[in-house]
């Protein structure tokens, strides 16, 4: 029991470190991808190819003046970015990073907690994440911040519905709410994306909206709202908001890979004839490759598509995605019954 506890603690720390590290380098990657897609070079002054740029940015963030507006709700103003960051970090707990690993005669799964309700846990914490934005936006006592907060919250509520419905179809095919079981059910190339392409499409659109990423970044669009909910923020509080956004992107990419692309499974993993530990380690790398691809995809889309208008956003959410998700759900149910009957 105690070894398990130690292993889990180490795993939590590693996951935490990796999450923060990837979020940090996502900022670098974002700027590089943006630059490359626009035929530019991007940051290349700090270290070779600008590798040290995130450290420079972080240092800059720390040394900026930490300003709290006089007419703001001081405690809530501080609480906002804290909630955003906390919630973003919490979601990584249920993601299965890899298969079984045997170390010191103890076999354990590379997952912090394989709870029964893994997918619901993620949905729950995603829906709580909006409080960070809302509280921060309201406490700033600035009309632009408030607009940003209101936009973010209404957008999140709208897209959470379609997201939940599209996930339901996946849950029906794999028959479990636990992310570990969902990954196991996709073993051997049985990736959900082949069985649930529509659900995948709906989910990825909703993921963009939930992360407040372009083309759904109305909550922080510079041209209309200055900075949206973080207009009044500076220093590391602003850094927390931006960081939370990148962590959310990382987690979303991980969830997309887990739900639709087989997580740490890769083709021909049983035919290689390697030991279980080696397979697990390759699986972890494959999983991170998938995640990196989706992070890149997030950025690729951001620098390709223009922003939605607000009414278009709501129309897409309520009148297109939700009916499609319900249709997909009913179709999946019908197919499952049909499969059982014959």
């Amino acid at each position: 029991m105690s070894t398990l506890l130690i292993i889990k603690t180490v795993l939590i720390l590693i996951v935490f470190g990796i999450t923060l590290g990837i979020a940090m380098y996502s900022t670098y990657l974002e700027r590089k991808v943006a630059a490359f897609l626009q035929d530019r070079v991007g940051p290349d002054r700090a270290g070779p190819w600008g590798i040290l740029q995130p450290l420079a940015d972080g240092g800059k963030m720390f040394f900026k003046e930490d300003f709290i507006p006089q007419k703001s709700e001081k405690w809530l103003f501080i609480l906002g970015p804290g909630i955003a960051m906390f919630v973003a970090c919490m979601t990584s707990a249920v993601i299965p990073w890899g298969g079984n690993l045997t170390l010191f005669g103890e076999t354990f799964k590379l997952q912090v907690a394989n709870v029964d309700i893994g997918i619901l846990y993620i949905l729950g914490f995603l829906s709580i994440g909006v409080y960070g934005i809302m509280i921060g936006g309201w406490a700033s006592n600035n009309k632009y911040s408030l607009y940003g907060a209101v936009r973010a919250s209404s957008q999140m509520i709208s897209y959470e519905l379609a997201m939940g419905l599209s996930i339901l179809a996946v849950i029906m095919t794999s028959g479990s709410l636990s992310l570990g079981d969902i990954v196991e059910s996709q073993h051997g190339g049985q990736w959900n994306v082949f069985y649930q392409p529509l659900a995948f499409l709906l989910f990825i659109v909703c993921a963009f909206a939930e992360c407040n990423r372009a083309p759904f970044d109305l909550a922080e669009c510079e041209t209309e709202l200055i900075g949206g909910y973080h207009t009044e923020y500076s220093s590391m509080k602003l850094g927390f908001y931006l960081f939370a956004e990148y962590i959310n992107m990382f987690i979303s990419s991980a969830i997309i890979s887990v739900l639709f692309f087989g997580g740490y499974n890769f083709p021909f993993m049983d035919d290689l004839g390697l030991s279980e530990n080696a397979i697990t380690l390759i699986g972890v790398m494959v999983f991170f490759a998938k995640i990196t691809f989706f992070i890149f995809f997030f950025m690729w889309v951001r620098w390709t598509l223009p922003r939605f208008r607000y009414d278009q956003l709501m129309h897409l959410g309520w009148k297109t995605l939700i009916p499609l998700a319900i249709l997909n759900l009913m179709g999946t149910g019908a197919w499952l019954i049909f499969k059982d009957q014959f």
Partner: protein
Amino acid sequence: MKSLTNRSKAVSNKKMSFLERIYLPAIIGGLFITLKHLFKRRATVKWPDEERPRSDVYRGRHVLKRDENGAERCTACGLCAVACPAEAITMTSMERKKGEEGLYREEKYASVYEINMLRCIFCGLCEEACPKEAIFLTKELVPTNYERENFIYGKDKLVEPVSKRVDVSKRQTLEVVSKKYNDR
């Protein structure tokens, strides 16, 4: 109205087909357009690490030429200042004293000659107006500075040093000179 290019497109309000209405083909097409740019050559020139090659007749900062003996060619006639559309050039003339023949070519010379590089538009009209072939633009760039005053270039910066003559043979070709004198 006839369009100047063939690239203009007439706006139509026709009903979109199903494929157009779901937008996905358009979105994927757009994604591939940006992806293509990922593999394109970068347009950035990393100045000052690398320099973009400039032509020999590039219009950069000015130089006041000396003649073969090292005497200043400028006679402070003021034609460059008149020609200057940005009114960037000012000068004060002086009479040459005895014993200064080695310094100044003509009997009159400019004791003060200033070009405000913030006003200058680098059009090259001063070069064209000069009857004594004294002022030329060069390939050099005007470096940045923190103070406005430092952009007012006096004779100390403009007159070419005797030891380091500026080569203007590329811009002072026979065609240029003959055209200049025919126009006059």
